């Protein structure tokens, strides 16, 4: 129960961050996605099932806050959680989180997430949906990966600390 409460609080904090602070990090209109970072973290730490459900709930919350296209973030984050969950390995959780593998999983999940997101979001708005979708997805995913470097370093330090004991 305590675990779920902490998770909920973390999600709320990240949501607050995304709606207040993250817009200031905009580069060329692209923003990182800290909530996706959380979903990938849950996938590596808790497994595919929990990541899928977390992705859905986090996405739903994000949709409720943004009121832009209700259900779209829920859909994409569910898929992202499911994709990230494939890399769950109960024995190597700390190693995965504290290595470039975390960034690779993050990039892959983020890319799938953004492909689906922009694939739907740009329908009827842009003429050349495919190239725009690829461009936006790559940019947003890379930015999220860059932001993901910071928690990775934290995990590395934590992992080394635990190893030194």
């Amino acid at each position, binding site marked *: 129960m305590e675990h779920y409460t902490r998770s909920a609080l973390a999600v709320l904090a990240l949501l607050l961050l995304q709606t207040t602070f993250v817009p200031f990090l905009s580069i060329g209109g692209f923003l990182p996605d800290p909530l996706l970072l959380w979903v990938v973290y849950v996938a590596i730490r808790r497994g595919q*099932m929990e990541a899928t459900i977390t992705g859905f709930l986090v996405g739903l919350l994000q949709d409720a806050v943004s009121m832009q*296209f209700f259900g779209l973030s*829920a859909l994409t984050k569910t898929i992202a959680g499911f994709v990230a969950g494939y890399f769950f390995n109960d024995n190597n959780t700390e190693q995965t989180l504290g290595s470039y593998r975390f960034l690779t999983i993050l990039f892959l999940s983020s890319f799938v997430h953004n492909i689906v997101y922009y694939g739907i979001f740009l*329908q009827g*708005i842009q003429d050349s949906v495919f190239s725009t979708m690829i461009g936006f997805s790559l940019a947003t995913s890379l930015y999220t990966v860059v932001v993901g470097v910071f928690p990775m370093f934290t995990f590395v330090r934590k992992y080394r600390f635990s190893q030194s004991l």
Partner: protein
Amino acid sequence: MFKRIYNLALVFKEYAVLSVLLVVSLILMALGDNAQLRHVRGVATVAFGVVQEQLSFIPRYFGLRGENDILRRMNVDLADEASQLREARQENDRLKKLIGLRESYRYPVIAGKVISKNLTLLRNTITLNVGKFNGVLPHMPVVGDGGLVGIVSSVNDHYSVVRILLNTDFRASAKLERSRVDGILAWDGNNLILGNVAKTLDVMAGDTVITSDYSSTYPPNIRVGVVQEVSEQQGSLFKAVYVSPGVNFVRLEEVFVLLYLPDSERLDLEQPAPQKTRR
């Protein structure tokens, strides 16, 4: 069966959860009405249409009976509608002709519809749906699209009976339009004959027969028909001039009653003086 499904769901629980959540997300998206969603809906409709078109060769057996019933009913309705339209077109043609006819008479007219007719007797009549309330009176002439039809013989409030040309009681003073030869038009039970035409007079088949100025019953110059045949009768001073009526009584449906009555002053004058009978 259910246990097997349950076991299968357990094995693939991640996929099951994913499917459920995706469906929920899609439903939530579908509840909205964004521009993107409208576009996706449009694309989906087109894609579905293409697939449906490709699969349309597979007959839908379960729906065929119901579809057949609907189509049969539609067929009957459409046939009925087509029949009504044909009828309306024919009526329109007839009425157009009648309008032209109406404008060709100098007298006011009352339009009437033939509601019954008998054409197989010696004294044939037709019944019209107009009567005294419409201004129809006995002895008023009746015309159709081909010319003279007859004369009103009796009237009640809403109906009137017309004695037509094909009636042994029918008499009319008529003349040939071309040669101005006069005669008395009558029906002998088989033919319409212009009588009292001397053998020496100029009569040809195809001549148009019209009512003459001598008629006290009909206004002059109403077309009656055309001369069909002229025959010389042995031992007679007169020709037999057979006239084909201008009106097709079999197909007659609409007529005009001319608001024309014989001039009573003229009738009074022409009335023969009463003769004293000898005892």
